[in-house]
């Protein structure tokens, strides 16, 4: 399972009972921040287009295992309403050594953020809400759009590749 409406549980995705040849575990958790681009955030709502989201998360796990030669990669995402400090995403990678474990875990989290149809609506102190801009996933986006897809579309936020 990839998408959960209830709080995420880390233990089942660690694979600690297996992989006796692995000396390293890297775990990432993304949590809800109380501030985004200077505005006080009260809570968040995540929605996902599940059929494609789940397929892509499975693909990302598989790609990550192959690309970094790691035997275990799992990623899960929360949907629904989240409070500050709640965990939105968990990724766990086990590997023989720590270099690949860190690199593979970061890669999988990056890919989920950039490719998986999940949206984040932030609810602010002032009663308003807004969707984060994020990444265009249209497969045939013309090149001129790819270069400015964060701009000129009446959105409330800048492009956020670098954010946690």
């Amino acid at each position: 399972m990839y998408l959960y409406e209830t709080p995420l549980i880390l233990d089942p995705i660690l694979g600690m009972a297996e992989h006796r040849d692995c000396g390293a575990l890297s775990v990432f958790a993304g949590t809800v921040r109380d501030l985004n681009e200077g505005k006080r955030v009260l809570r968040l709502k995540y929605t996902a287009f599940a059929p494609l989201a789940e397929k892509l998360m499975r693909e990302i796990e598989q790609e990550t295992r192959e690309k970094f030669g790691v035997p275990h990669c799992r990623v899960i995402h929360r949907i629904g309403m989240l409070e500050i400090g709640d965990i939105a995403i968990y990724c766990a990678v086990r590997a023989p050594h720590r270099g690949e474990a860190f690199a593979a875990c970061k890669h999988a989290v990056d890919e989920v953020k950039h490719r998986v149809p999940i949206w984040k609506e932030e609810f602010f102190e002032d009663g308003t809400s807004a969707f984060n801009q994020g990444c265009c996933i249209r497969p045939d986006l013309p090149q001129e759009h790819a270069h400015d897809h964060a701009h000129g579309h009446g959105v409330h936020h800048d492009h956020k590749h670098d954010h946690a």
Partner: protein
Amino acid sequence: MVVTFEFWGALRRAAGGDERALTLPAGVLSVADALDALADAVPALGEYLDNTAVAQADRLLLRTEAVEDGMRLSLLPPVAGG
């Protein structure tokens, strides 16, 4: 030909609802044509559609792919998970 558009993320707010069934004019053959017809019917969506991906169930469609009667097209604006 009738196609149902399903709106996700910020598109729901712009479209004023979760989905919209549209009877497409004659001559609509491709996903790109269908989106043009949608922009005519719901002008508030127009500015979003260039950056919107179109999926049928778990498959992303190209703009050049053919639409068929009864299709359900999920419109996916830029994503921001994690």
